[in-house]
């Protein structure tokens, strides 16, 4: 049975979204198909290679099972099937960047004019040229995105945002929805179910990039003010124009560093991040979390979408989840997933016992994946995809804590 695969034709559009020709759409659709083929047909062979030849050879040589993901990696790097799958996967990442950039740069003049019209003199776009890019953003171009989020090639650049927006749909095969906002939708859904009736007044999203996960919060709480911050100006310009074009007005895009937030203490009821921490560093994490604690109001909630931590995880699964660290320019991914998040929150000032962790799943966009019918219909999750994809499926581990109503004074 073939997997439902939405066409890039169905992607959600707005005033700063790039126009695509027949062949450009066909190019994206080829890459989506290739990604699906790799995860469904080639990837299972990687596990098979591990179980049937690499692991037995390791055990024969060492007289024991591999102790951790690093031993699995060193053993697997010599396996031809793993090499081929990795090389193909790396190529899909690079080809997706090439396709997105060729789309954006041929029409950059028009896209920038569209963004300018929405951004000019808008008090809700607040750029600060004094903000420096942290080392963890400068070291490599994150997930093989040339120039990363912050690289500017023209004045008032928005190209990194447009390229990122156009390609998200391809790398996720539409599983995050037409507007790639499945993460934000999942948070909203969780809040509605676990905090029914709660109306946060001020919401902060850190590391927002193009605001795709902050927008669902602004839409779900129209009376709230959402502040979305990032260190990179191009994605903020793009995100602001994107939000305006989509009719979302209760959101401010502000250039700021999560390690030193330009906000007063206790001003936010909800502080969120989505797939953010793995793109920072071990030095930055405690500083950012301390800022999260500081700007949270008493009784406020903080909630973070990430992939699961490695502690207690089977070394092979951890190795597979670690792939992006070494092969897709996500250098902090590996160490971030070793971090003790409970300790991180306690270190930031949250009381012991306040840490919680849960699993969230993207709500299926029925515009892309029509409701399954009949017996044995695919599940409601992940665009009907049940295949293990080691972190590419729209499933997250969410962690967070609530700040006590009143600071407890130690006895």
């Amino acid at each position, binding site marked *: 049975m073939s997997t439902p695969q939405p066409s890039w034709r169905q992607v959600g559009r707005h005033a700063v979204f790039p126009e695509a020709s*027949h062949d450009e759409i*066909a190019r994206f659709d080829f890459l989506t198909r290739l990604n699906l083929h790799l995860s469904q047909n080639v990837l299972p062979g990687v596990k098979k290679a591990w179980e049937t030849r690499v692991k037995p050879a390791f055990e024969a040589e060492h007289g024991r099972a591999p102790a951790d993901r690093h031993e699995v990696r060193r053993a697997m790097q010599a396996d031809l099937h793993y090499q081929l799958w990795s*090389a193909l996967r790396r190529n899909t990442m*690079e080809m997706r960047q090439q396709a997105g950039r060729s789309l954006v740069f041929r029409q950059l003049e028009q896209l920038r004019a569209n963004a300018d019209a929405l951004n*000019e003199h808008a008090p809700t776009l607040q750029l600060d040229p004094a903000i420096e890019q942290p080392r963890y953003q400068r070291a490599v171009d994150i997930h093989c995105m040339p120039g*990363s989020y912050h690289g500017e090639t023209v*004045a008032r650049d928005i190209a990194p945002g447009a390229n990122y927006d156009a390609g998200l749909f391809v790398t996720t095969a539409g599983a995050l929805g037409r507007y790639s906002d499945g993460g934000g939708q999942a948070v909203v859904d969780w809040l509605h179910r676990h905090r029914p009736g709660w109306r946060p007044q001020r919401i902060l999203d850190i590391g927002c990039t193009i605001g795709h996960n902050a927008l669902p919060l602004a839409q779900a709480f129209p009376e709230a003010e959402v502040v979305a911050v990032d260190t990179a100006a191009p994605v903020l310009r793009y995100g602001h124009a994107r939000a305006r074009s989509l009719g979302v007005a209760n959101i401010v895009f502000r250039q700021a560093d999560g390690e030193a937030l330009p906000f007063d203490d206790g001003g936010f009821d909800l502080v969120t991040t989505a797939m953010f921490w793995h793109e920072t560093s071990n030095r930055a994490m405690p500083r950012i979390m301390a800022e999260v604690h500081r700007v949270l109001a008493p009784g406020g909630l903080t909630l973070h979408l990430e992939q699961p931590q490695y502690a207690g995880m089977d070394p092979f699964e951890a190795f597979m989840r670690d792939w992006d660290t070494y092969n897709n320019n996500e250098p902090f991914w590996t160490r971030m997933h070793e971090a003790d998040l409970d300790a991180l929150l306690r270190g930031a000032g949250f009381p012991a016992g306040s840490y919680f962790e849960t699993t969230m799943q993207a709500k299926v966009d029925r515009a892309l994946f029509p409701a399954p019918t009949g017996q044995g219909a695919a599940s409601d999750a992940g665009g009907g995809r049940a295949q293990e994809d080691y972190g590419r499926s729209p499933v997250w581990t969410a962690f967070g804590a609530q700040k006590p109503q009143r600071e407890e004074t130690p006895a």
Partner: protein
Amino acid sequence: MSNAHASPALPEPGELDPVAMANRRAKGKRPQFLDDPAVERAMSIAMAVAGELSVARERIDTLERLLVAKGVIAADDIERYEPTPEVQAARNEWGRAYIARVLRMIDQDVQAMQADPEPALEQIADDLGRTDAAARG
């Protein structure tokens, strides 16, 4: 704070070459997966060509469907099409040349195996570069 601050001395979009911009590499050392770096590159090229073939195939599909929709041909005209012997011969000839182009490298390996062993070009270069004085010496 405003959103209109000038970026320092950046070009206008029209001054950029979109082809060069699309091909810019991401900062960060590229991992090598396959044992042979040449094979690694050949795979990247093959995957790009596979992508472009898929794009061309989709364009042909669009063309066929438009022709049907506009009543120029019927939906089963292509499947029911029977080439005349002349057309078939022309296609065979095109197909022969096409396969030869694609598999040129393998063809030439076979030719080399069938020929007498050949000296390396360095050796011929040395031979041709030798002067009478050196030959006499």
